[in-house]
């Protein structure tokens, strides 16, 4: 091991193992905990009290040292008022060299606005349909203009 390429190779080798995939989840949960602790201004002890866990357990999660259960993750996420969902990392399918993808994402971003909201204002649940309709109308208008030109 002499340079950064060797490091990437070692990470890539580890990523290609089942342990690597599992470790991604641990790192993602640890990052979520750290970000939320910072955002809320909480200590690890405060989180432990809220989640009815022991402080060393929280430390273990932050260090990605604990092979947590979904029950444990649920208690932590509930205490932090965070919802997450597991999504497939499509970037890794396209580029096997991607050393870090999104294995677990917040469904509620740190700024407090749930997904589907923009700048704190709730979007219409049909906003996607509205965009599609606008695109269809634009295409129709263009086709009509071309027909008139002929």
């Amino acid at each position, binding site marked *: 091991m002499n340079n*950064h390429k060797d490091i990437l190779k*070692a990470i890539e080798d*580890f990523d290609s193992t089942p342990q690597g995939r599992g*470790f991604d989840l641990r790192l993602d949960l640890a990052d979520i905990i750290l970000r939320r602790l*910072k955002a809320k201004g909480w200590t690890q002890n405060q989180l432990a009290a809220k989640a009815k866990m022991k402080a060393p357990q929280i430390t*273990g999660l932050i*260090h990605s040292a604990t092979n947590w259960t979904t029950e444990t993750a649920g208690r932590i996420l509930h205490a932090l008022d965070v919802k997450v969902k597991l999504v497939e990392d499509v970037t890794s399918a396209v580029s096997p060299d991607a050393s*870090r993808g999104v294995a677990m994402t917040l469904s509620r971003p740190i700024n407090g606005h749930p997904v589907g909201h923009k700048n704190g204002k709730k979007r219409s649940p049909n906003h996607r349909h509205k965009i599609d309709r606008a695109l269809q109308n634009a295409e129709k208008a263009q086709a009509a203009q071309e027909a008139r030109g002929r």
Partner: protein
Amino acid sequence: MVEVTEAIGGATELWLSDKVWRELKRLDSTVKGRFLKQLKRCCDGGFVNYEGMLVVCEWSEVYRIGFGWSLFRIIGFYEDGTNKTRFIGMDAYLKHGQKLSAADRDRINATAAIKKNRAWRKVVGNEQS
């Protein structure tokens, strides 16, 4: 003069001395992959966001990087004037217990002396800075 070479980029660039490279090389491949993966995650996010948890200040502005699941530790310091965006890993070791041993303290003091005396330089390919 200790030479360091770039290891991992990101919000925090990590540069390592030959000593750290050697110690990394000695690690078991699974531990090495796992350690480097978590280290890269820290670099991507910026060490400053992991301070107090995974990146811990010892004394004399010398920091220790370590993860609870392993006894492997890297010690080093932020390069002055980089606003903590560049970290120089100067030494690495496998710790033996909860408390710092005399040898561990010596390592930290030696690293602090290197930082204080600016007795290190970055090597980029054939260039030196």
